[in-house]
């Protein structure tokens, strides 16, 4: 049996909770019952003051740290930051990470069986919003006996959830860490999401979302969606450094089918791999939730007004080469928090890796995260 690194949370087992009360959703529909899959790291203390929620991004899930088995190739998606002695120190915090509702890694989603019909929800699964997720996460907190989170932490779409937590449940969150995120998507952001969705929807195997009934999956569409997404998560520099214009072979083929440039090969591989592990309907749902997020919308576009009720201390971080959620977008959020006279800190981290930087162990980023987390008071 292999041993895990000393700063790893080690072997973790996902858990599952069922909710049998109907959940009213922003779209007007309700889910009569649902399940959430989650993982926890560290111990909840006696006063329950050390609980911390990690919210995942677009294609994420509950497996944020540690290993599911001794021979798992890669640890959870944010293992760089979560563990004993790490920035999010599991010796201090009780960390909860879940697969969002509508996801495809165990929580109730489009590929789950609808108890009312005995068949997969497929296209009939309701459209979800960030508010819906936060609502379902609050129900999870209730079940776990957590009145208030010491902190809610998330990057990208996860950062939107952290912010929504501070807005929706001001008394239940003490610190909000919104990383590489934005208070709403720009037209360009939505445009990229729409390209991704069209790639999926126009795949002949999509069958209006009920592909499961036909025994197929819209693999090509999902692959294209991921390819376009992936481009936006990297910076021009990081792609250039990784691939440049490097060719896989010495000769040009003068056709359109062969893979000639290394970057083509990389994108095809990433897309291919993703299309085999991710559900198309979930991808549609998650991108829609991103598009819809706009807390200022209910306040005539006045973001400061939307943030007025926040009690949490906020920490906003952005990365210089992130063009999907550029530092300017984070500053919009910071400026609104300043205008609303909220407690806020803001860091603009120099990083070459683009949007993906928030998942990488960039020294200044991790140090700042650690310094901030260390200041969060929890009972012994």
């Amino acid at each position: 049996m292999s041993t895990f690194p000393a700063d790893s949370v080690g072997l973790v087992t996902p858990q599952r909770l069922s909710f049998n009360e109907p959940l009213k959703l922003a779209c007007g529909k309700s889910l009569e019952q649902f399940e959430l899959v989650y993982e926890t790291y560290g111990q909840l203390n006696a006063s329950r003051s050390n609980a911390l929620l990690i919210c995942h991004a677009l294609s994420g899930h509950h497996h944020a740290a540690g290993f599911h088995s001794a021979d798992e190739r890669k640890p959870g998606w944010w293992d760089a930051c979560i563990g004993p002695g790490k920035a999010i120190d599991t010796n201090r915090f009780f960390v909860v990470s879940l697969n969002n509702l509508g996801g495809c890694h165990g929580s109730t989603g489009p590929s789950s069986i609808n108890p009312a019909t005995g068949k997969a929800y497929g296209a009939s699964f309701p459209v979800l919003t960030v508010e819906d997720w936060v609502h379902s996460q609050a129900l999870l907190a209730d079940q776990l006996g957590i009145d208030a989170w010491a902190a809610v932490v998330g990057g990208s779409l996860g950062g939107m959830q952290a912010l929504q937590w501070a807005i929706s449940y001001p008394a239940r969150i003490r610190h909000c860490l919104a990383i590489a995120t934005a208070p709403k998507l720009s037209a360009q952001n939505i445009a990229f999401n729409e390209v991704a969705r069209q790639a999926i929807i126009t795949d002949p195997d999509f069958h209006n979302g009920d592909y499961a009934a036909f025994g197929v999956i819209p693999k090509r569409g999902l692959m294209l969606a991921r390819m376009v997404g992936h481009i936006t998560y990297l910076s021009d520099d990081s792609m250039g450094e990784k691939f440049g214009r490097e060719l896989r072979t010495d000769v040009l083929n003068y056709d359109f089918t062969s893979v000639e440039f290394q970057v083509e090969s990389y994108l095809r591989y990433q897309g291919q791999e993703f299309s085999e592990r991710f559900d198309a309907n979930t991808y549609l749902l998650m991108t829609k939730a991103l598009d819809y997020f706009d807390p200022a919308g209910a306040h005539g576009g006045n973001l400061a007004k939307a943030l007025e009720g926040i009690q949490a201390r906020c920490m906003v971080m952005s990365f210089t080469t992130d063009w999907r959620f550029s530092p300017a977008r984070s500053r919009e959020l910071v400026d609104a928090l300043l205008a609303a006279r909220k407690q806020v800190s803001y860091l603009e981290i120099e990083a070459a890796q683009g949007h993906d930087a928030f998942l990488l162990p960039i020294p200044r980023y991790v140090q700042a995260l650690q310094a901030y987390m260390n200041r969060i008071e929890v009972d012994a």
Partner: protein
Amino acid sequence: MRADLEIIQEWIKPGSRLLDLGCGDGELLRYLSEQRKVTGYGLEIDPEKINACIDNGVNVIEQNLDTGLSNFGDNTFDSVLMTQALQAVHYPDQVLEEMLRIGREAILTFPNFAHWRCRLYLGTKGRMPVSEFMPYTWYNTPNIHFCTFKDFEALCRERSIRILDRLVVDQTHRSGVLSGLWPNLLGEIAIYRVTR
């Protein structure tokens, strides 16, 4: 605590809202928030100092003063503070105007280029003064707009800015009788409190 900060904190009313431009490690903000229930933010660009601010538990915003302060609303702070940074910004006059737009009053400290040691150095050696107090050579200094007390007060007169308090101190931040008599010659650091 640094001696100029020691003096400044006397001028800050308990419970007031403070913006500290170039806040360093956030020591003053921490002290004022703990001792005087002051709320506020520090602006800083040095990553290490920003981390020190986080360690100190103060709100710090990574923002370059040279890109402006337009993200802060009119009269949203009681005091806007800038210690030892006026000489390092691109447009000190504009920063001063901005400080008084955002805050009711502004508190500034800066080194006096007309201090006798500077005059002597420049007068006898004919070179830009380098000392323990101003340890940079002309080409690598962050200080790009040195001024004298007289210069600063002339600027205030020109812009109809009222000087509420002025303290002239030496580099150990003591104010002597002589520096009170000939501040522009004998004072090394000025601490000003100004308003519109």
